[in-house]
């Protein structure tokens, strides 16, 4: 199966990391596609939670917003937003949180707040939303982001949410007990934190992607794990289910999400 886009490869590689037992805090966009793809393929028992309060939701089509009626209609139940953040997120009930961002650094800290100084921003981004506490309260964090030299930045202008901080045992020193980012899936490759330094290190390269292309799209000198795999290309089934999901979504919303 060779006819797929880098974006499809990214979504599918992210979906594969999810387990049937996961309780997953889902963001809109690529995370939502990956989580629902996992649910429709190898992880039918996965529990999807959106910060709008929908618990164990099974949307037929991808939501366009974090609070689409479809999420509520197909949920086990819907709780208030304070309850969502108190009992479910801070409560430690979430095994995997899915984040993206405008900028990421080599320790998987994320910036979705500002480019430039906070008080005089070059670009004012939407802000952290749920991310600062998703980053510390979920059992582990998966990140899904397209690679580009400006978004994979040597230094963040603002740390919206903690990844591995300055690396090493920085999370533990801050009193955080969760694992933090364990997987960063891009349109080019998969990063995982080095066991010691916690620097995000490439463990798998998507088919047809070269190391030069990866470096051109990363703002720091990338490191590779001792053994680097080639990502298994999308299977026919994975691609078919993902495309059907996008087609259903397009039919419902008039345009693909």
């Amino acid at each position: 199966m060779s006819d797929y886009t880098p974006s499809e490869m990214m979504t599918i590689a992210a979906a594969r990391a999810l387990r049937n037992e996961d309780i997953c805090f889902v963001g809109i966009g690529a995370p939502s596609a990956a989580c629902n793809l996992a649910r429709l393929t190898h992880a039918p028992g996965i529990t999807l939670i959106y910060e709008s309060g929908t618990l164990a939701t099974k949307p037929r089509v991808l939501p366009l917003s974090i609070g689409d009626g479809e999420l509520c209609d197909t949920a086990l139940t819907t709780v208030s937003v304070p309850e969502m953040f108190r009992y479910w997120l801070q409560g430690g009930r979430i095994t995997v949180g899915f984040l993206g961002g405008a900028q990421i650094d080599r320790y998987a800290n994320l910036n979705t707040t500002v480019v430039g100084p906070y008080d005089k921003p070059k670009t004012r981004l939407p802000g952290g939303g749920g991310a600062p506490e998703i980053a510390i309260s979920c059992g582990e964090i998966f990140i899904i982001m397209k690679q580009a030299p400006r978004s994979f930045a040597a230094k963040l202008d603002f740390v919206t949410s903690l990844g591995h901080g300055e690396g090493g045992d920085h999370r533990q020193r801050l009193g955080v007990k969760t694992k933090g980012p364990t997987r960063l899936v891009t349109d080019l490759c998969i990063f995982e934190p080095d066991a010691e330094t916690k620097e995000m290190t490439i463990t798998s390269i998507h088919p047809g992607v070269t190391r030069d292309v990866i470096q051109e799209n990363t703002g720091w000198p990338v490191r590779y794990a001792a053994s680097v795999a080639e990502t298994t290309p999308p299977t026919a089934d994975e691609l078919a289910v993902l495309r059907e999901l996008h087609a259903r979504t397009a039919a419902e919303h008039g345009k693909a999400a």
Partner: protein
Amino acid sequence: MAEFLSLAQAMEATMRDGDTVAMEGFTHLIPHAAGHEVVRQRRKGLTLIRMTPDIVYDQLIGMGCAEKVVFSWGGNPGVGSLHRFRDAYENGWPNKITIEEHSHAAMANAYEAGAANLPCAILRGYIGADLPKVNPNIRHITCPFTGETLAAVPSIRPDVAVVHAQRADREGNVLIEGILGVQKEAVLAAKRALVTIEEVVDDFGPRSLNAVILPHWTVTAIACVPGGAHPSYAQGYYKRDNAYYKAWDKISRDRDGFLAWMQANVIAGGPQDFAKYARRLSAAAE
């Protein structure tokens, strides 16, 4: 004790220049019709609080109603930036605004603490994040039992909460269902509350024993505005108008275009316009 009023009267009865205002809604049930009424009544100097300021606050900011925005995620969901918010914050048009920025968890807890009449909320939050460096309203306390440091934020106590809900009964009790957001907390945290609703019913009839209901004595004024959440949605009534959210990006990019649109669609309009917007989307909601 809730009074049933026209939207214009309800707004006059509840919101004053300089008020701290929470017009809440988490994608669902955003009080757009009430926002337009704020514009028509030309309120000034408002502090606008909302977890997810989107189009309705973009409109208020662009029309010069706001002087401060307290928020945790500001954008046009799935579309992009709020151009009027950015223009005011970055360029001072039509007036300079200040911001106070939190995380969702902190704001949700702050509303909850406001409803509980506490001066602050505590949470395990902001660890390793930069917001505490730029927001002096993020402080810390030490747990007197474990010694753990916890984040603290002031509770949210608005002068006015404005929310949209599905139904009120004749006594003025208000029923909300579906995605609840922080609306109940916003109403209970506020000094005054204005609720717009889809319809008035004689009574709620058979319902969950634990239905989410705001008793009439927690609400100041109720205005029946069918479609009043449009382009947001009301579960069981009509769907979200995604095309409107996309169109807003273009409308709001340009100051003149924005002003012309507001003149034609808000200043020259009224709450009665919302019913027809919603009707277009209601067939699909079934």
